[in-house]
């Protein structure tokens, strides 16, 4: 039996999918509406899953009093109400698809000291979700 704990957060951000090494016509063909030069936005839902032993003294894998401020500082402060292309340094050179956003958020959270980060899952809309697991970063 293995236990994990998942906490769900929300952030709202804008982005534009555009790869500078491709021509404008190719960008329009590949990214479609997401290539609109003015960008567009989403209400992203972020699920952070941690695993580890349950501390018998607290009954917890991690205290949300530790996890929430860590995620706030590492991710939400920099992502919420921002333009991902313009305001998150990593996406100045990397297309902010939600696949890439998943990996960047995992990278930012993987040193959480109180439990092991197991999965980052993002719902870009209620119809699209993306996830990355610890095995990719092993």
């Amino acid at each position, binding site marked *: 039996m293995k236990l994990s*704990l998942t906490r769900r957060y929300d952030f709202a951000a804008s982005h534009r999918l555009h790869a500078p090494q491709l021509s404008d016509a190719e960008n329009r063909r590949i990214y479609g509406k997401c290539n609109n030069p003015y960008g567009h936005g989403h209400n992203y839902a972020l699920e952070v899953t941690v695993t580890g032993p349950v501390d018998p003294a607290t009954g917890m894998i991690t205290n*949300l009093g530790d996890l929430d401020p860590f995620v706030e500082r590492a991710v939400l402060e920099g992502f919420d109400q921002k333009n991902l292309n313009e305001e998150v340094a990593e996406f100045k050179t990397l297309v902010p698809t939600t696949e890439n956003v998943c990996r960047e958020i995992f990278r930012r959270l993987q040193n959480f000291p109180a439990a092991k980060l197991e999965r980052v899952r993002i719902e870009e809309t209620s119809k699209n979700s993306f996830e990355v697991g610890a095995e990719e970063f092993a």
Partner: protein
Amino acid sequence: MIRITRKVEFSASHFYNNPNFSPEENRRIFGKCNNPHGHGHNYTLEVTIAGEPDPATGMVLDLKELKDILQREVMDRMDHRHLNYEVPELAGKIPTCENIAAVIWQLLEPKITRGELDRVRLYESPNLFADCTAGSTNGAGKRA
């Protein structure tokens, strides 16, 4: 292999307090959850069974049977109860999402007659859930 999932909802009250901690430590560690008068949640429980469908019925496990098991093992024990005082399986444990999910796993596992218990997912709220899955224990995790 097919996975089937049944969902039930129950409402219960609880609070977090470790008698080995001082009142100040309890308040610092558990925050609002330490309120001795307790507070409540609408819990959502998703139970997943994995297995091959029976060729005669096309079913992994009859969902009616799973529904009855969940009623007996979980709803009758926990719905509209105070988890600190009225659920013997949680006695001496802090009734966190993690501990409740583990207790539910232990209650259900021996009752599943076809297929295998694959996952117990317990939502305390839409923004917090614990997963209990088959497999190795949590020893590999690190804790500061």
